[in-house]
């Protein structure tokens, strides 16, 4: 039985603005910033509507403990996130966090490969920050539907992270879009296969649509590379109380996304 540091924190909105069609960037001020680790998530309450009672589970792109700020990129997909997008700077509420288990450092020495799709990008940016902080080498594949200002800024950010200390080959960031408006037209798995053919990796990290992560997990398994995947589920609580966010496992039975994940060993998940 694990003890938990998941707690209730007040937060204040610092800024909350659209960065693309239905994609918003929220910066909030909260004490959770000093507690939360890359790949963990928090469960935000949007006040003022008694008909939508559940909190909104959200991952984060960056957290800065000393200043107490957390940066969240989220997609407006339903009523909850629509109301979240209406929270103005200065408004306050509460969040539950830190929730779940985040990214783990590579178990073996060697370069990592990060594969992000859509709004799976922010947790991958958080993983990149974690690796860069340890001076670990990595390449990145970023998939998006189309080019937009925010994804381009995040790609620039990834390109600007510290150079690989393990080898002299340089870090690579490949971009794929569905419409070819940025980078290669095609799927992230195609770009991933290209990189796998060119280079060796010790660890894959992935976050994005389930179908994409299933493909990434398969490619990693075929290449014999360990793979961590960050999953998303509808959640009741976010901290293991209700058993609603079940994830089917290869060995049979279920894990809970909120408590056992959201980062899982991809080879244990029955995709």
């Amino acid at each position, binding site marked *: 039985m694990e003890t938990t*540091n998941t707690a209730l924190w007040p937060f204040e909105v610092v800024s909350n603005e659209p960065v693309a069609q239905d994609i918003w960037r929220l910066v909030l001020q909260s004490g959770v910033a000093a507690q939360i680790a890359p790949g963990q998530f928090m469960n935000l309450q949007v006040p003022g509507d008694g*008909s939508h009672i559940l909190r909104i589970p959200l991952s984060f792109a960056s957290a800065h403990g000393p200043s107490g700020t957390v940066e969240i990129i989220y997609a407006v997909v339903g009523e909850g996130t629509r109301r979240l997008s209406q929270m103005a700077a200065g408004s306050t509420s509460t969040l539950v966090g830190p929730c779940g288990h985040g990214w783990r450092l590579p178990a073996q020495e060697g370069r990592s490969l990060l594969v992000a799709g859509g709004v799976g990008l922010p947790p991958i940016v958080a993983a990149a920050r974690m690796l860069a902080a340890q001076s670990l080498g990595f390449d990145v594949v970023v998939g998006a539907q189309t080019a937009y200002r925010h994804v381009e800024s995040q790609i620039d950010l990834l390109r600007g992270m510290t150079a690989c200390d393990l080898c002299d080959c340089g870090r690579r960031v490949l971009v794929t879009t569905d419409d070819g408006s940025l980078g290669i037209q095609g799927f992230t798995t195609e770009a991933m296969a290209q990189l796998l053919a060119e280079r060796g990796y010790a660890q894959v990290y992935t976050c994005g649509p389930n179908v994409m992560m299933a493909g990434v997990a398969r490619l990693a398994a075929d290449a014999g590379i360990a793979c961590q995947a960050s999953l998303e589920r*509808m959640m009741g*609580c976010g*901290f293991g109380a209700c058993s*609603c*966010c*079940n994830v089917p496992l290869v060995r049979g039975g279920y894990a809970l996304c909120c408590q056992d994940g959201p980062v899982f060993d991809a080879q244990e998940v029955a995709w």
Partner: protein
Amino acid sequence: MVSGVNMAVNLGGIAMRNPLNTASGTFGNGVQFEGFYDVGATLGAITCKGVAAEPWVGNPAPRLTELPGAIMNSVGLQNPGVQGFVDTYGAYLAGLRAKGCQVICQVAGHSIEEYVRATELFEELAPFASGFEINISCPNIAKGGAAMGATPASAAEVMAAVRPLTTRPVIVKMAPHDVAEIGRALEAAGADALSLINTIPGMAIDVRTRRSRVARPTAGVSGPAIHAIAVRMVWECAQAVSIPLCGIGGVASGMDAAEMILAGATAVSIGTANLYDPTCAPRILSELTAWAESQGVSDINELIGAFEC
């Protein structure tokens, strides 16, 4: 809490420091809430997640959808079996008892034989259990569960089979129908207390795909939207039986808990509110205590069933 009102109640032999309990399945096994408040020092009791003799995997995903003022779940009593439950949570739950919080272990089964086996295992392995809650009303399992609690005869049959196995208090978790008639049958079969209501079976259809919004066609509705229905059923059951009741259903404030007590509940469980408002229990307790004081009584027991009609 310093208060002029005695808040201690007795739920069928389970002496609670205050009326607040937790609804099974909404509180993990307590430890998940330790980051929010001191569970053992706050609650009158906790009711643990339902456990069967052997582990159950539970239902496929998705298990949850949101409705106006409510949620609908189809977890299907995923549990590690009595041995796994005791191995993982036994020491923590014994610690809750030591702090004065009662621990009610919920017994799940698909058949009379499975309820009996699970109760026997709990008797043997769970000295920390203050009492048991027999769940004959889970709407999310294919056989047993709600089917066992569907009629007065079938409900009484489960109770009668479990009764000789333990001297600890036995509560029965009731389905949201025919609560007076089934309550009388359970009292006659030896139940020490009744808890009601379990979730209300519902359906939510995605009209675009024509499929259920959860993995099974029906699931259990809970949350503030069902509170008034639960209060009505507690009141109906209270008229029919003389054993104490634990009121459950959409309690999210001290006033909600007070309604349950006025309708005839001795204890009140917080359910769905634990999920979205995990610090609600201490607040509800303080609101309930303030309400009791405002009613000018010296003992909360004076307010049980004090509804005037």
